[in-house]
């Protein structure tokens, strides 16, 4: 299995602060990779660096065979990467329809694809003409995901989609991601919720203090309680 995305020795500075201190990990083609780690570990910074929202000061980011570490954000997105930021980045003053129209870069929204998305993200259909600012947290998250996949993308970066959501909605979210996994989109998911991560992940990387401290298959980590304790400690349990 080849890798769609590979980070090697990535360093990121924000102002005077050295946040990513040599990050190495790979995202294999076709699967769902989870990036775990406690609060402040640098996961968000990592995704933002991939998107070119922070500039890497050193290291390579190879996507689909080319180093993208010095490309601008729009250029990175145009390579076929969809991004769902931690804040969701919903345009509150635009309607659901307008949010999605804008995201469909290539032209009018493909109605077959839209119908497929309505199937697992039903809220979108119901609130089609509502300004997105009026949606609930879970609905906004659905919209943010829909926006990232309104056209087929090679890679999807999703930052903590379960943050602040009720358990019933999280269960729904799991279903939505299962549906996405059936397509050939590769997904890199940042999470702190280990149950959610275990339900979906194929491979996993764990971050701490701006470095990757573990990577491997999800099954292995799920079966190894001791390793989980060591890597993730109590913070993850406390989070749930």
């Amino acid at each position: 299995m080849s890798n769609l995305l590979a980070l090697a020795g990535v360093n990121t500075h924000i102002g005077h602060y050295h946040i990513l201190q040599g990050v190495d990990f790979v995202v294999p083609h076709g699967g769902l990779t989870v990036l775990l780690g406690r609060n402040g570990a640098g996961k968000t910074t990592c995704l933002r660096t991939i998107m070119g929202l922070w500039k890497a000061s050193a290291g390579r980011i190879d996507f689909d065979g080319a180093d993208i570490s010095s490309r601008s954000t729009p250029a990175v997105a145009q390579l076929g990467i969809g991004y769902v930021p931690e804040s969701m980045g919903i345009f509150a003053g635009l309607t659901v329809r307008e949010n999605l129209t804008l995201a469909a870069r290539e032209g009018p929204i493909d109605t077959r694809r839209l119908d497929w998305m309505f199937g697992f993200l039903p809220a979108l259909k119901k609130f089609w003409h509502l300004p997105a600012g009026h949606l609930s947290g879970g609905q906004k998250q659905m919209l943010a995901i829909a926006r990232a996949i309104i056209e087929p993308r090679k890679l999807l970066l999703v930052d903590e989609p379960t943050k602040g959501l009720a358990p019933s909605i999280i269960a729904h979210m799991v279903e939505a991601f299962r549906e996405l996994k059936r397509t050939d989109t590769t997904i890199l998911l940042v999470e702190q919720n280990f149950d959610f991560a275990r339900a979906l992940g194929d491979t996993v990387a764990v971050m701490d203090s701006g470095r990757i401290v573990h990577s491997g298959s999800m099954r292995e980590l799920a079966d190894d309680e001791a390793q989980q304790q060591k890597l993730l400690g109590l913070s993850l349990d406390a989070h749930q």
Partner: protein
Amino acid sequence: MSQTKDALRVPGPDKIPLALIPVIALAALPLIPSLPTWVTLTVAGLAMGMMIFIMASGLTLVFGLMDVMNFAHGAFITIGAFVATSVLLPLAGWTQTDSLWMNLAALLPAILAAMAVTGALGLAFERVIIKPVYGQHLKQILITMGGLIVAEQSIHVIWGPDIIALSKPATLRGSFIFGDIAIEKYRVLAVIVGLAVFAAMFLVLNRTRVGLLIRAGVEDSEMVESLGYRIRRVFIGVFTAGSALAGLGGVMWALYQETVNSAMGMQVMILIFIVIIIGGLGSVGGCFIGALLVGLVANYVGFLAPKIALGSNILLMVLILLWRPQGLYPVAKR
């Protein structure tokens, strides 16, 4: 079930700020001794508001898109006025005849020249002066202040330091008379032009893809880039258009006051800032309402208590900020 219904009801746009305009106009009515005076002041206020809106609208969008506040915007206003003057003065023969067509034949090229020059200057200014300091607010304020100083001084070098008199075209002088009520023709024209600019902007923003991009960019430009759009190109376009509108506003303002001088831009800038703050930084609708409010209040108070006319606008700003700290229409920022 009833809950879903509530959620489905699409909330209309917030109309309270819009209602402020008639409320203020009616509140002034009992204070002003005669109805004709009130009508004159109201029309004058609306005309002034429209002109301020034309000058301010680009600035508020530019801020919304890129967090750039161009303190040199006032210089574009002044330059627009001077360029138009340079075209109009040699054509005095055409502007001072009583033929509407001859007047327009002089006025249109003057306006186009002013907008072309200020638009081009805006483009150059963005590329040369502002681009190197994107995202650095402090430097950006300083740099645009520097740009203001240099631009103002350059105006002195090119057009000299003196105030230039510029009279309105003959057919735009005088008033329409309805019984006791006299309404200056030029003010009517200003209102029409202002409404046309507003309508055009409204259509572009709400009916076109570029407009969608601009509205999204004002809310969260980083996200627009993450969707794969080069927001900077949009920004450059808006900056250029905003500068051209400043030029248009400058011409209209100069003809309104019938003089041109190098400080005029900076004087209007204070009003423009107040308008943008009142409206909510980045909001075109807020800017429109803010401009009309400022125009009306300036005219009513200018009549009732001339000494505190500008102070009244500051007071208006403070009151509105106390009511809505982010301005009338806060732009949902990330």
